């Protein structure tokens, strides 16, 4: 009778098997959820049962898996990682059919190793011999199979002399060896492993690793749950990262491990933790008319303001903090997100303003999340997830688009890059000026000795500062390297365009409008025509804080068309000696103008500039020493007549690039 029951089960499983139509699919998990009901008081005795009969049995529902879907291909070494309690072991147990999901379906093709741990069913009162047979049968081997493999098993476990000893007299190492030796004999197409390598000495672990490699070579499908990121990276082809029962990431091991590490340093609810003392207070949301409201129109701005309290956080960390604001729809899709640097080492609290321009989205309820994280390590210091609700109305006629934006910095389209050294006088004006056409700025500070760094830090458009503290002579190579560093730093924000500028340059033309228009779609690089401004006899007062644009009256006619703007392509690269311009493939045009004040801020600055070049660029040293004391010009450095700005453009003589 009961044998029929088995064949019935068998049929049911055959049906499941047919569901996996894809030939290469080994495991298919679709929309699986699992809830544990944890009763507040377990009613296991008659007394408590009777006493509590009329009380409702209270329990906490714990979602250990929530709508999880993924596939594992045949022959894949698939890792599952996550923090404790993230649901990874539960997932493995569901794959092994030990737990049944509450909803969703798991389809498995191929023979599954049914065990998650070594030595299942081992009985300490039995001899090693009997335990091999017992454990082997539990793992699905027949008695005959064990008979033929018995010697091999005992040999692999290095336990030849102890076959008839009772297991309870074995050391834990011996037991694990025996267990592993049996386990490797179990034949399966899909092997599930749950942290088996936690035990055993070094040699034995190496043996296990060898066995892993063998499994991999033989094209077995392996599902591996581990806390050891080294093993995960070494063995896995693909990794699933679970967080609180949900899929956090699925993909390359390297990225998964990185994300796991980030998750791992998220603050647990520990009040003593110094980082948790960073907080955002006095949060307010206003519209562009400066009215406090919770209702907005598409096209309007949400202006968030608040104070950041750094608490007892490390002063060094404060300068790296990034404040992020994200707007989510009701289905938790991130619509738009942006972030700003929170730089203020001087005060304990800092007021911030933050503007989100509402894109064309559907009318509905939206929520805002605010977080503060370390821009270097991604460590999260403060998070208020969906704390504020807004009603956003779309009364425009344009169709609503739901941007599937899923990343911070989504609306950074142009990133400005600059290298600065002791630019205290002009840097504020420079960044203000450039901010008009770039979204964010990344600065490389080259060992400034004045307060340039403070000014850079305090500017909200600056999202990253690379700080070079050591000054090296012979700048030619250094300059190229610095620019490449800036470029690489900028790439992680994934902008459309890069714009490289120097602190002493002012730009003329609607650069932003052009870059974001259709006209520039096929353009890969833009050269900007740069003219030197000169101190002249009637125009020699030094620059004081103010606007540098159109500061001098006369400009040289020599025109340098310098490649300052380029599209964010992976092929773009700075190389060579003193390479101001990167190598850019594709169509390059010349557009816009630039006034260059390098030599004309003041007479003193002219002298300093001469010294600077003479000292740091040996190859130009004589040329610059000759220029000392000649700050006031009647003619250009190339001995040509000086012109007012407009005429300089009209009479321009191109000297760069030389053809």
């Amino acid at each position, binding site marked *: *009778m*009961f044998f029929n*029951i*088995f064949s019935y*089960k*068998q049929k049911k*499983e*055959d049906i*499941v*098997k047919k569901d996996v139509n894809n030939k290469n699919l080994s495991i298919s998990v679709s929309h699986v959820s699992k809830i*544990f009901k944890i009763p507040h008081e377990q009613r*296991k*005795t*008659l007394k408590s*049962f009777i006493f509590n009969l009329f009380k409702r049995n209270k329990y906490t529902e714990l979602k250990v898996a929530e709508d999880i879907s993924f596939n594992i291909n045949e022959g894949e070494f698939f890792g599952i990682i996550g923090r404790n309690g993230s649901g990874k072991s539960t997932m493995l*147990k569901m794959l*092994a*059919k*030990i*737990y*049944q999901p509450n909803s969703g379906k798991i389809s*498995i*093709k*191929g*023979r*599954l*190793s*049914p*065990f*998650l*741990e070594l030595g*299942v*069913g081992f*009985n300490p*009162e*039995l001899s090693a011999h*009997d335990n091999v*047979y*017992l454990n082997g*049968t*539990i*793992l*699905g081997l*027949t*008695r005959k199979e064990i008979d033929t493999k018995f010697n091999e098993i005992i040999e692999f476990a290095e336990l030849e002399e102890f076959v008839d000893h009772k297991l309870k007299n074995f050391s834990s190492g011996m037991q694990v060896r025996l267990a592993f030796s049996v386990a490797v004999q179990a*034949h*399966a*197409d899909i092997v599930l492993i749950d942290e088996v390598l936690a035990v055993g000495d070094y040699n034995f672990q190496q043996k296990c690793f060898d066995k892993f490699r063998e499994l991999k070579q033989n094209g077995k499908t392996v599902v591996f749950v581990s806390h050891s990121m080294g093993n995960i990276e070494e063995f896995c082809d693909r990794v699933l990262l679970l967080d609180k029962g949900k899929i956090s990431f699925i993909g390359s091991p390297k990225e998964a491990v990185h994300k796991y590490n980030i998750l791992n340093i998220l603050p647990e609810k520990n009040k003593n933790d110094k980082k948790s003392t960073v907080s955002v207070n006095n949060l307010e949301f206003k519209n562009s008319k400066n009215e406090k409201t919770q209702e907005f129109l598409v096209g309007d701005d949400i202006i968030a303001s608040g104070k950041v309290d750094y608490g007892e956080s490390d002063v060094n960390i404060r300068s790296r903090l990034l404040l992020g604001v994200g707007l989510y729809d009701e289905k938790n899709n991130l619509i738009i997100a942006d972030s700003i640097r929170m730089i203020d080492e001087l005060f304990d609290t800092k007021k911030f303003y933050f503007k989100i321009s509402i894109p064309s989205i559907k009318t509905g309820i939206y929520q805002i999340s605010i977080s503060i994280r370390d821009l270097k390590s991604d460590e999260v210091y403060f998070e208020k997830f969906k704390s504020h609700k807004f009603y956003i109305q779309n009364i425009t006629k344009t169709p609503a688009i739901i941007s599937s934006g899923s990343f911070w910095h989504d609306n950074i389209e142009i990133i400005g890059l600059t290298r600065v050294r002791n630019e205290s006088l002009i840097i504020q004006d420079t960044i203000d000026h450039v901010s008009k056409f770039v979204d964010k700025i990344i600065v490389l500070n080259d060992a400034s000795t004045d307060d340039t760094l403070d000014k850079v830090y305090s500017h909200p458009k600056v999202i990253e500062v690379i700080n070079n503290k050591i000054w090296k002579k012979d700048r030619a190579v250094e300059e190229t390297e610095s620019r490449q560093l800036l470029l690489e730093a900028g790439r992680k924000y994934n902008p459309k365009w890069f714009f490289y500028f120097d602190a002493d340059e002012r730009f003329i033309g609607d650069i932003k409008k052009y870059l974001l228009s259709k006209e520039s779609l096929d353009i890969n690089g833009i050269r900007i025509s740069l003219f030197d401004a000169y101190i002249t006899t009637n125009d020699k007062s030094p620059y004081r804080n103010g606007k540098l644009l159109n500061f001098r009256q006369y400009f040289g006619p020599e025109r340098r068309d310098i490649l300052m703007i380029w599209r964010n392509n992976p092929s773009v690269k700075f190389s060579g000696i003193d390479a101001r311009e990167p190598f850019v493939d594709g169509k390059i045009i010349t557009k816009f103008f630039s006034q260059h004040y390098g030599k004309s801020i003041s007479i003193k600055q002219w002298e300093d500039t001469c010294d600077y070049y003479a000292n740091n660029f040996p190859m130009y040293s004589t040329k610059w020493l000759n220029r000392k004391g000649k700050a006031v010009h009647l003619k250009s450095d190339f001995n040509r007549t000086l012109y007012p700005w407009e005429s300089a453009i009209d009479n321009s003589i191109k000297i760069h690039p030389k053809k």
Partner: protein
Amino acid sequence: MKNNNKFNTNHNYWELIKELSFTDFKLKYERSILGYFWSLGKPLAYFMVLYVVFTSVFKLGDSIPHYPIYLLLGVVTFGFWAEATSAAMQSITSKGDLIRKVYFPRIILVISSTFTALLTFVLNMFAVFVFAIINGVNFNFGVLFILLYIFELYLFILGVGLALSSIFVKFRDLGHIWEVLNQILFYATPIIYPLSLVPIKYAKFQMLSPLAQVISDMRIILIGEGATLTTNDFWCFSWLPMIIVLITFIIGYIIFNKMSNSFAEDV
């Protein structure tokens, strides 16, 4: 590699049942010098006590031919019932470790635990035969029909055991309740006394019990007509208890199937 295409994890469940029940059997008499003989010794001692009390004090044996065998068969059979059901009841909870870590149809645990009791029972039955021969009982090959009744009883035990084991996971008081119920059942079943001593209106219902029916029918096969009354004597359908066995098994299986999904979480 064999059986590559099989989906299931542990295709040879029969091997697993054998291995688990033999291990149980082995562990049960581990470190005891007389080993298995204790499992015969226990019902034998119980039988001796009952025999002395009921033949010399109550003079029950006089009306029944081969009363010692009559009594021994009843005691041994009931012993099988009691041991198997209580083993089945605990089969899931006692193997929690296995359930949390390996997948196989959970019914295997109930089957293998009752198999251990069945093994003991079969050995004990040989002893009963030896005593029967000594006692001068004449039997022929028809005695092999006893195997059919053993199978019926085993199916009944399995049905009850499946229900007990799954309920026991959530409700541990069942252990004590079952012990008390079994004591009552021992006296409610015509084991010591002949059914002829019971008023018919009660005896009628007693004989609906598959346990009573199996014991009575086995006695008739072994000792012969006149040994006891059977279900036939009270009901027109002698197979009525067999239907009860079948229904019990189906209900037990349904309960078990429904609850076994969460065994791994509950044990």
